[in-house]
């Protein structure tokens, strides 16, 4: 059976998949508390936009593969920590029904230097989009439909 966490001497992956909203302020405070060697904190938050594939979208529904999702994202953090200085990393991804403007995803990375923080944060986010098993449905007044994977997302991940 798959394990839910991966050991990493440089950065302990901290991954949460949850229905409930998250507090970006609290996440930032915990990232900042990562030792005196941290000089850079990069964060990314994704929100539900008002214009998806269609204009009448009222929200999203997110399904995931429990267990595998956490493992894939933990592995991405480990990969990031092998390529860049990563002192702490945190990923939260929400599932279930999310109305417009909801927070969907948070990625935060602490590093000694800004280049590492930016690269690790963007890498984790890009790779999550094409490898973590989440699926999005757009909800409209007329019904709902599954979102298709974007070729541009695949290209971005291949760029790393």
């Amino acid at each position, binding site marked *: 059976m798959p394990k839910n966490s991966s050991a990493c001497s440089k950065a302990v992956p901290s991954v949460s998949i949850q229905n409930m909203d998250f507090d970006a302020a609290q996440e930032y405070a915990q990232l900042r508390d990562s030792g005196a060697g941290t000089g850079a904190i990069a964060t990314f938050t*994704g929100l539900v936009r008002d214009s998806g594939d269609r204009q009448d979208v009222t929200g999203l529904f997110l399904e995931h*593969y429990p267990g*595998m999702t956490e493992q894939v994202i933990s592995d991405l953090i480990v990969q990031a920590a092998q390529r860049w200085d990563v002192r702490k990393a945190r990923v939260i*991804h929400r599932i279930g029904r999310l109305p417009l403007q909801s927070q969907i995803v948070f990625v935060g990375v602490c590093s000694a230097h800004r280049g590492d923080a930016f690269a690790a944060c963007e890498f984790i986010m890009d790779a999550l*989009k094409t*490898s973590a098993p989440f699926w*999005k449905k757009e909800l409209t007044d007329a019904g709902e439909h*599954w*979102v*298709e994977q974007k070729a541009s997302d695949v290209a971005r991940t291949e760029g790393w």
Partner: protein
Amino acid sequence: MSEQSLNVRFFARLREELGTEHLTMPAPAGQTAADLLATLAKRGGPWAQLNTGQPVMIAINQAMAKPQSAVSAGDEVAFFPPVTGG
């Protein structure tokens, strides 16, 4: 699940279109994920899409896998559409 079978899971659009969340399948020696897809596609109807070249992602024991990956007795094999999180 007996030692001679494996557990198959479907997610998202595939789960909905097949009307199936999981099922148990035989696990003959030497079977690959592609073989398993071909067997399932023979059920016809919506199952035929599993063998038409439409992209189906494969995970074996919750790790990404390829069509040529071996699937063995006791494995958890999942099929799903390209992922769209984030």
